[in-house]
């Protein structure tokens, strides 16, 4: 029996998702039995022209991780979309923009200015910025064009499935691969197109083992300020935990070790905007005798964008800051 064609690609992201695939451990052998890798720059040597040369639909399943930050990401997204039967947005960056998506608080130029000119450690008296085209005797060198706005994969091309997480949790990856493999083999149905797979229907709180009671917050705290009670809900202790507005599926591993959830699994079904929703949740449980005092306490949350949209700014309602 011929193997199915597997591709994995790393666009605007840290590479953690690539490693996460290996977290499935011995299950990787099964993957190898079932799939032939036809494109996976991080693991094997392929050139873009190789994949550009494939027939449309040649690849059976492509795990695409990373956001669309520049023209190269966009080009590959389009190529892989055309070549793949099943295109999976893999990980937080591809599904909702991820950490790189926080760059949407600035424009491309502002980012370049900071990196090449304004940062205190910069020594660049001639004000040299990277050029997108540079001619050398051997020919013309191109750098990808950096966009103002970081986009998610599905803001760029049509996506079949979403596997959230930063990075996706190994057990969930394995489960997703099982479902897809079985479907390709004709042993089971594919989930409906557009589904988020590798998650459970409720929120992170469902999986979190901490004891939850009524929540009334009188001040917000950061994780370095104190040692949280190991049994009690972190939110009740004044830590902003994104659990209530985050899809379950990760096993609440962060809260299990005392780190508040940061929301990488994305908004649960029925929530239009994870950050706005969690902001509303957090502000709702501020407790003080007067509305004025409540307002003062609520406004002490530092960096609402970074807190509530740590992974989801490009997929949020407003998507980015004003340029």
């Amino acid at each position, binding site marked *: 029996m011929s193997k199915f064609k597997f591709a994995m690609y790393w666009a605007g992201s840290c590479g953690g998702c690539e490693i996460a695939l290996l977290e499935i451990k011995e299950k990787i052998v099964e993957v190898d039995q079932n799939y032939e890798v036809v494109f996976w720059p991080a693991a094997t040597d392929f050139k873009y022209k190789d994949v550009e040369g494939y027939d449309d639909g040649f690849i059976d399943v492509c795990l695409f991780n990373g956001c669309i930050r520049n023209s190269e990401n966009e080009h590959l997204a389009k190529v892989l979309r055309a070549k793949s039967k099943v295109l999976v947005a893999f990980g937080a960056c591809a599904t909702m923009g991820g950490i790189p998506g926080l760059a949407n608080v600035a424009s491309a130029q502002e980012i370049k200015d900071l990196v090449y000119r304004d940062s205190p450690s910069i020594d660049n008296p001639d004000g040299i910025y990277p050029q997108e085209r540079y001619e050398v005797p051997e020919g013309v060198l191109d750098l990808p064009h950096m966009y*103002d706005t970081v986009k998610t994969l599905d803001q760029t091309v049509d996506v079949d499935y979403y596997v959230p997480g930063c990075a996706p949790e190994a057990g969930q990856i394995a489960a997703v691969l099982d479902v897809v493999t079985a479907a390709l083999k004709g042993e089971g149905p594919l989930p409906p197109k557009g589904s988020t797979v590798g998650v459970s229907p409720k929120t992170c709180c469902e999986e979190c083992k901490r004891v939850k009671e009524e929540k009334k917050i009188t001040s917000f705290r950061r994780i370095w300020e104190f040692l949280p009670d190991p049994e009690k809900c972190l939110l009740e202790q004044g830590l902003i935990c994104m659990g209530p507005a985050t899809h379950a599926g990760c096993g609440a591993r962060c809260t299990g070790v005392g780190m508040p959830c940061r929301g990488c699994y994305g908004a649960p079904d029925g929530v239009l905007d994870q950050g*706005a929703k969690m*902001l509303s949740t957090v502000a*709702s449980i501020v407790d003080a005798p007067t509305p004025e005092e*409540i307002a003062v306490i609520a406004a002490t949350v530092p960096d609402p964008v970074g807190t509530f949209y740590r992974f989801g700014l490009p997929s949020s309602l407003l998507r980015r800051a004003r*340029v």
Partner: protein
Amino acid sequence: MSTNGSNGFEPRLIGFLCRWCSYNGADLAGTSRLKYPPNMVPIKTNCSGRIDATHILKALKEGADGVLIAGCHPGDCHYINGNYRTAGRFPLTQKLLEQLGLEHGRVRLEWVSAAEGDKFARVVTEFTEQIRALGPLGWSAQFVDESVAAPAAEKEAVPA
């Protein structure tokens, strides 16, 4: 570009009004035949506490230049303290929006009782003028297609 009233910018505003106080206050403004600018479309909920940041963001995304939330005065809430929740969400939402580059006055929270038709009219008038002075927000207009084909040499078009 900000334009003022004389060159035709008419702000488009959404007003979330609680049913018991502010919506009735707006009704009273009507019954009293007070006049105010026509720029705001009211949306009724039972309590201002029903409105979360999502609704505000949604309104801005759909093209609103400003959003007003009006509820009962503290202590007057038909639901005891629903408006306390509004009071907490509002400043944090405002802080978020300012981080995203919106001016401080784009969203506004007001307590308007059912007896304050005059206040309602005044608030809408002021708010309309305030947004008129700030100019259009036009949130979706800033998303230009930064396609692969864009020649690198060409400067990115950045609408204000």
